[in-house]
């Protein structure tokens, strides 16, 4: 579904991502772990087509994002950690706008908006201006806007930040549902317990370089993801 090979992204003289290669198969929830500034967001944004990159290749469903960005973007959805969405629109205007851009027909969008807005308890607030929403409500609206598109690949940057426990629980279930239908999830998180419970595969990144990746069993083993991550961080710092 997503194939990243030798990705390098440079800001000025600093390499934010350095020769990173990853492969995310359909049906997999893939966790992306690293400390602040490790290059997780840069990688996700590059995969979403928001950032250009200097070297390497990103392919979505076998198509290069550099060669056909429109096709790649039509297959994916990106959810940033702090979704700044249009404050000048109402919630329903925003969802309709997204539906128009992704060509979702009227009856389908109606059903999906009803379903997910009920699920995330946002339906009553859809007529309100987005500028009056709390952070959590904006996050929920952004999640609904992702779900109504039914994308094949969902990339999320810290998706659980700002969500209430019920919405968090719902999102985890929906992430699994997307994968069960043949989609894939690629998300970053600092909450290692969540990553261990939710992810099928995981990658650990430090200073833009891939430190380790593989199935959760391979990486976490019996010690648990947190112990492994802290041990690896310690080793890297000692080196």
């Amino acid at each position, binding site marked *: 579904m997503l194939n990243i090979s030798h990705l390098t992204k440079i800001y*000025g003289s600093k390499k934010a991502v350095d020769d990173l290669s990853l492969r995310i198969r359909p049906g997999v929830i893939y966790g992306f772990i690293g400390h602040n500034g490790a290059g997780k967001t840069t990688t996700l*944004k590059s995969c*979403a*087509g*928001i950032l*250009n990159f200097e070297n390497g290749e990103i392919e979505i469903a076998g198509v290069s994002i550099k060669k056909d*960005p*429109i*096709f*790649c*973007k*039509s297959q*994916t*959805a*990106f959810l*940033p950690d702090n979704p*700044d*969405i*249009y404050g*000048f*629109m*109402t*919630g*329903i*205007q925003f969802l*309709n*706008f997204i*539906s*128009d*851009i*992704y*060509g*979702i*027909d*009227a009856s389908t*969008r*109606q059903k999906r*908006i*009803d379903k997910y807005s009920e699920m995330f308890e946002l*339906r*009553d*607030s*859809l*007529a*309100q*201006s987005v500028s*009056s929403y709390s952070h959590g409500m904006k996050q929920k609206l952004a999640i609904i806007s992702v779900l109504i598109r039914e994308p094949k690949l969902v990339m999320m940057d810290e998706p659980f930040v700002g969500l209430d426990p019920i919405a968090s629980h719902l999102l985890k279930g929906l992430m699994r549902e997307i994968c069960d239908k043949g989609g894939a999830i690629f998300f970053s998180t600092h909450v290692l317990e969540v990553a261990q419970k939710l992810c099928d595969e995981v990658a650990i990144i430090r200073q833009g370089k891939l430190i380790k990746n593989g199935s959760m069993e391979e990486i976490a083993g019996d010690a648990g993801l947190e112990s492994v991550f802290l041990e690896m961080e310690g080793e890297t710092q000692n080196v």
Partner: protein
Amino acid sequence: MFKALLKKQLMELKEVYTPRSRKSKKKTGTKGFVILFAVLTVSISFSFVGMSFLFADAFLPLELDWVYFMMMAAIALVVSVVGSVFSAYSILYSAKDNEFLMAMPIPPATILSVRLIAVFLSGFLFECMALVPAIVVYAIRAGVKWYLLLQVVDLLWIGLLALVLTSLLGFLVGLVVVRARHKSLTTILVSLILLALYYFIYFRLNSFLQAIATNAAFIGESVSGKAKPVMWVSQAFTGNLWGFLLLAGTSVILMALTVLLLSRHFGKIAFTNKGVKKVAYVERPMKQKGVAAALLRREFVRFFQTPAYVLNCGLGILLSLALCVYALIRFDFLKTGLATLLGSLPPEFKNLLAFVPAVAAGFMGSMNVITAPSISLEGNSLWLLKCMPITSKQIFNAKQGLHLILNLPAVIPCCAIISALMGLNMWEGVVNVIYGVSLVAYTSAMGLYMGLKKPLLDWTNEAVPIKQSASVAITMFSAWALVLAESVGAYFLRNSFNAVPFLFVLPLALCALLNRHLYTRGEKEFMDL
């Protein structure tokens, strides 16, 4: 604490006028913008020179120097208030970092004082445009006196008085808006009422000034008899040290009281949404639109939901339409008046007259630079457009579409009606309409081009990219410069070649060049933002 906040505010202001290229992080075009700004400031100042001479010749021979300064200071006060009042509310209360700052151990009065400095700076600039020529003209007519230094310092006190009025008006707008159900609409309406008041006074200004000049002695006697404090304060400009101290003291005390009043209500206005009632969601049948229509609708919603955008980039449209309606109502009266006026012009101007309607409409149209702040207004939500399966071309089309759809219905009838008023023939009328349209197309492309070259995405207040960005200023002045250059060119060519029917070629050619850049290299530049 105050110093740190002031530094932040000044950094914000500096960033506005010297935006950095996102890629290279280098500052771009600072010198050019400073020169442009200085030229504009000096040009506007010149319009107050004539007024200063009129008053100086009326009051100085009667030894009523203080009345001269009283009048000029009053005019400077009005100019300063009108120049800064429309941004006062948004600068004082709508900044994005309100909650961030209020959560810190900073008294509201300190936050407000720093924001007031930003309002003061814009008002002070307008005040200087009016009062500095008055001081210079006084020096020419009465000679350079020892109290020139006092006059310069008095600029500061008058600036403070203007700031008191501006911030109180901003506070009143805030009180109304905080209770309003439809905030955007209320802000627009309140601002339009203030603007209508300004124009009401402005259109009566000439006869008012003449009346003052002819009744100079009477005014002097009346003020010195019935309003002595006004006389003392005005004498601050003519070497009266007590008057100087009175003016300084009054300004500082009024300013302190204003800060006290505003800081007591700061939280109430900045954080309360009294008027916002929860609107129940009622399900309606949904309709699917194409990508182009959805993007265009998004631009429309943003425009009409952002009062500063409507007031600063769309007011010319409203004025053009008002002008059309007025011209139609008083068609015969205006046509006769214009015929008399045009008949008195020298013969060498006659063949250029056919160009006047388009110049008038073009100047008015170039004030509506809707595309110029459009990219900057994407701000932190730019990521949404960049990760959608759409091309930059579709985004640019929507932005230019909004500009053209809003401007053309105002500029076309405006050109046509003025042509009819001037008694031009059908062919000349058509040429004018084409020229008006070409200027709108040029402004649209230039605005988008400048918005792309000088984006301002990290704003804390949406009024900043709309009112203070380099892209807006450069686009507006470039359109004026283009019209001026073409007018001068046509005048000098008048004996060998009638250039008037071909004037639309240059704006259209420039528009084509700009669009060529936008739709080729510009697409990548947008994605690199």
